[in-house]
């Protein structure tokens, strides 16, 4: 028996796989719903921020001095900076499309529905996906009612992240439920398969001879299997009985035949006369012939079965086999009376290939022909015919002129020892052999009535198809790789910065020393110029932009000029001095009061802003023309410090007013103020960038630096890698170096700037007297955020400068 060695598949695994696929499909469907749902939910929450910002801006729109103005509220952009990573654009337009303030590109964007209620939409702006809110308000002017429209666009990073986290939370829940479901399925399959285990144990405990029915009470689903097993066992039992019967038959046939032979021979030996002996010997010879034939057939039958199981099939020419067989059979002189006809004209080709075992097929045909001879008349006419019933089949027919086989016996004659002529020469094995061969070749054996009334036996084989193999030649085309066009020298790192070149050079040198082979080109540009050139997409835009104007830097980053870098590689990063993984603060720049020491000998400087206002007012005459201040109309740093102070304290305009009365002098730059103060030309200067002052103290013994006790705003110089950077890798390395311990220590010790790192700030000599630390509470950092854009608003800036100028009255 052949064992088919095939891997077993697991019913459980199949079911689990099917269920898994089902659940996965379910997850996909739920995901699709979830995506929509979470997006809506995230939009709902974040749209509230947008709507709030829009409303707070619209509330500040007013009509005064014959024009519509807006005092951009700080809260509007602060609300939006609750999404800390997102960039924000806004524009305020009139109904005629005139831009009042904000981004002129955004002003062109129109959502379909507009009106009193906020309208929302998803748009693309500055190459980014943005959520836009648009809301209009009616302003009553003396001439007419006029509409103003605020448009705010915010990138979708925060809401995407929110939607994603909601989605993940939802999906996790569903996934857990799915897993639990699959667990139940697992258990259920185990439970469902239990009856099979019972069948298994029942069958495995059986004796091989026990072929009785399985007596189990199976569930309805397994009844079919049980019935099939029982049916199979019944057939097995039947086959076993048949096999036993066959053995018995063989034994019976052989022994009977040999007994008869022995009997005839014994009788011949005991014969009384020559004639009697001769007659008995002839009968013995006949009997021996029959025994021989029976043995041949038994051997042939056994051989055919054996070969069916073991012989490899080969392709061979059936035409040649038939011709050879006939030639061989006709050598037998006893067959000369028979009229044999070969009809193979239907096979036009030279060869008729079939796949099979030649010897078995030869044996089968020989048996068919011998049957035809034996059962036919003395002057028999046998026809062998090769035909092609269709393109894929070849049939061999053997037709005789014998009596044929009645239709009701045709099934039976195919069984062993079922000859219709048991008394005569038939062994009962001939057609059984043919049947075995046909089965082994998956050929069809048909018995029917021939045209001449005899039996027509037909064997139909599958013909061998000749496959044509076509070869295709494939030609590959080999293109030459084009040489890369020349890039800017990858080893030169270009930096634009607003810091004094002399101050910053030590940092650059330290970086070049740490990274041999890299050339750094540092160009010093004033903050506003720097801002304008980057904004106008100057073709010489460098790899790195550094500036002390935090608000302008935020604006550049907001407009998409920076590229992100992995913030986790940056040590010493302060949360207040970083935005969007793009803009990073690297110095600590507190605003300070500097004073002429000899003048204030023995006099305590005011400790709070309120006291300062009083102090100036009280000493108005002594200080007249002797107080320095930034000209905040031209100094970016001065404007930033002033606006931030105005935000932080009610005292700002009081001080401005006092300064005005005391005839404050304004300066463009820190250096001049320091020099004037140190020389005594100025008694004191307020809101000076402290790092320069602290650095100057060592050279100028008459210079004093004073910090307020209530609060001192702290700026930071910021750096970003431009989107257009040719040398991204080194640019990132440079930013990383700036914030590294090595960079911070160089900044602290050699540049005269104050490092942002708490560690190096604490060890800086300036810190000895003043405890420079955010943690002290005296130093309030100016956060890098969208909020810084408020005072960059054109109208807001105009209004602020107007108010300041009103306060300080006429200056210079």
């Amino acid at each position, binding site marked *: 028996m052949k064992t088919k060695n095939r891997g077993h598949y697991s019913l459980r695994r199949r079911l689990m796989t099917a269920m898994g696929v089902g659940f996965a499909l379910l997850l996909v469907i739920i995901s699709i719903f979830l995506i929509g749902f979470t997006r809506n939910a995230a939009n709902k929450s974040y749209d509230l921020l947008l709507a709030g910002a829009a409303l707070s801006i619209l509330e500040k729109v007013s009509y005064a001095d014959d024009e519509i103005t807006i005092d951009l509220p700080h809260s509007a952009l602060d609300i939006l900076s609750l999404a800390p990573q997102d960039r924000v654009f806004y524009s305020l337009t009139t109904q005629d499309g005139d831009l009042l303030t904000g981004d002129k590109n955004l002003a062109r964007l129109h959502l379909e529905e507009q009106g009193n209620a906020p309208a929302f939409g998803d748009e693309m702006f500055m190459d980014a996906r943005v959520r836009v809110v648009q809301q209009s308000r009616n302003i009553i002017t003396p001439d007419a009612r006029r509409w103003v429209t605020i448009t705010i666009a915010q990138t979708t990073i925060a809401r995407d992240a929110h939607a994603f986290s909601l989605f993940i939370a939802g999906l996790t829940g569903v996934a857990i439920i799915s897993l639990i479901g699959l667990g139940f399925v697992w258990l259920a399959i185990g439970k469902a398969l239990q009856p099979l285990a019972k069948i298994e144990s029942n069958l495995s405990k059986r004796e091989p001879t026990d072929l009785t029915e399985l007596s189990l009470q199976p569930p309805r689903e397994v009844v079919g299997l049980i019935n099939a097993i029982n049916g199979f066992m019944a057939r097995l039992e039947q086959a076993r009985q048949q096999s036993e019967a066959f053995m018995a038959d063989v034994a019976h046939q052989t022994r009977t035949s040999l007994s008869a032979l022995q009997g005839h021979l014994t009788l011949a030996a005991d014969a009384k006369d020559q004639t009697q002996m001769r007659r008995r010997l002839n009968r013995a010879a006949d009997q021996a012939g029959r025994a021989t034939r029976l043995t041949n057939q038994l051997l042939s039958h056994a051989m055919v079965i054996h070969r069916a199981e073991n012989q490899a099939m080969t392709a061979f020419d059936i035409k040649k086999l038939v011709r050879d067989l*006939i030639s061989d059979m006709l050598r037998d002189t006893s067959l000369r009376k028979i009229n044999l006809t070969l009809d193979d004209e239907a096979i036009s080709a030279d060869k008729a290939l079939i796949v099979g075992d030649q010897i078995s097929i030869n044996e089968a045909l020989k048996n068919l022909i011998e049957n035809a001879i034996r059962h036919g008349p003395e002057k028999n006419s046998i026809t062998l015919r090769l035909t092609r019933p269709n393109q894929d089949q070849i049939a061999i027919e053997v037709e005789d002129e014998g009596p044929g086989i009645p239709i009701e016996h045709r099934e039976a004659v195919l069984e062993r020892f079922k000859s219709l002529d048991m008394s005569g020469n038939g062994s009962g094995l001939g057609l059984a052999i043919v049947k075995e061969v046909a089965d082994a070749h998956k050929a069809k054996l048909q018995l029917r009535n021939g045209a001449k009334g005899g039996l027509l036996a037909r064997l139909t084989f599958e013909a061998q198809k000749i496959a044509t193999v076509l070869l295709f030649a494939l030609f590959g085309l080999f293109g030459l790789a084009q040489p890369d066009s020349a890039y800017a020298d990858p080893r030169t790192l270009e930096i634009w910065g607003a810091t004094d070149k002399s101050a910053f050079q030590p940092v650059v040198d330290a970086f070049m020393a740490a990274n041999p082979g890299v050339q750094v080109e540092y160009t010093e540009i004033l903050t506003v110029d720097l801002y304008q050139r980057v904004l106008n997409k100057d073709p010489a835009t460098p790899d790195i932009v550094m500036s002390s104007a935090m608000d302008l830097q935020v604006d550049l980053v907001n407009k998409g000029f920076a590229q992100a870098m992995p913030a986790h590689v940056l040590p010493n990063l302060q949360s207040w001095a970083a935005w969007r993984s793009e803009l990073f603060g690297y110095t600590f720049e507190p605003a300070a009061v500097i004073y002429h020491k000899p003048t204030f000998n023995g006099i305590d400087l005011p400790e709070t802003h309120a006291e300062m206002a009083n102090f100036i007012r009280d000493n108005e005459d002594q200080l007249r023309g002797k107080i320095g201040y930034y000209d905040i109309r031209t100094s970016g740093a001065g404007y930033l410090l002033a606006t931030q102070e105005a935000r932080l304290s009610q005292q700002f305009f009081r001080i401005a007013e006092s300064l005005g009365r005391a005839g404050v002098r304004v300066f463009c730059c820190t250096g001049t103020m320091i020099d004037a103060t140190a020389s005594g030309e100025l008694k004191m200067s307020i809101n000076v960038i402290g790092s320069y002052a602290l650095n100057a103290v060592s050279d100028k013994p008459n210079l004093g630096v004073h910090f307020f006790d209530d609060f001192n705003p702290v700026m930071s110089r910021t750096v970003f890698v431009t989107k257009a950077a040719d040398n991204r890798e080194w640019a990132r390395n440079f930013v990383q170096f700036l914030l590294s311990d090595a960079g911070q220590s160089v900044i602290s010790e050699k540049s005269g700037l104050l490092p942002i790192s708490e560690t190096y700030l604490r060890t800086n000599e300036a810190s000895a007297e003043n405890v420079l630390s955010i943690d002290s509470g005296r130093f309030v950092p100016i956060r890098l955020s969208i909020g810084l854009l408020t005072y960059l608003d054109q109208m807001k800036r105009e209004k602020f400068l107007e108010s300041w100028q009103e306060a300080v009255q006429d200056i210079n």
Partner: protein
Amino acid sequence: MRILVVEDNQDLAETIVERLQDEGHVVDLETNGEVADLLLKHAQFDLVILDVNLPDKSGFEILKSMRAGKVNIPVLVLTARSQIEDRVLGLDAGADDFMVKPFDFRELGARVRVLGRRSAGTAVNEFVADNFTFDRLGRRGYVNGKDMDLKNKEVQLMEIFLSHLGSVLSKEDVADKLYTYDEAPSLNAVEQHVTRLRKKLEGTPLIIKTVRGLGYMVYIDEN
């Protein structure tokens, strides 16, 4: 006829020898393959009956060695296996006929006579079967001593048939042997020649049997 029987089974060998001697032949028995091989190279026999399955040297090897040494004695191969391989091997090695054991001794006798006639004819240039005589040298055939008046092609046909007594010749084989390359062989013409020859052979024991679709077989009806 002088016949060499090479058969290692003593019982069967003796039976064969006795049977052939009864039929009037001179029979030598050899049970050893090696010796038989040697014997065949030195002594003259008219026919060899060769068992395939010999203990020391297989019948096929003896046959091949015979044919390699240009010994053209007809060989009848006896085999116990009715498989095609044996048949093909035997006929390829140069056997003239083969029989599968167990065989009918009357059939053996008939086959021996057929093979005997094939070789005897060539040796004495005269083929005789009862009232039929064919003079190979004179290229004439006689029935009851009367000239059959055979045409040229009929003589050729006669020669072809007599050298293949008892085996099937396809019509194409006959045509190939009957016609030279220059002549256009036609199967119809072959059929006509055969029909005419068959008519002239009426009353003789020589029978030209037609196996339709396959060809012809010429045998001698011994009854």
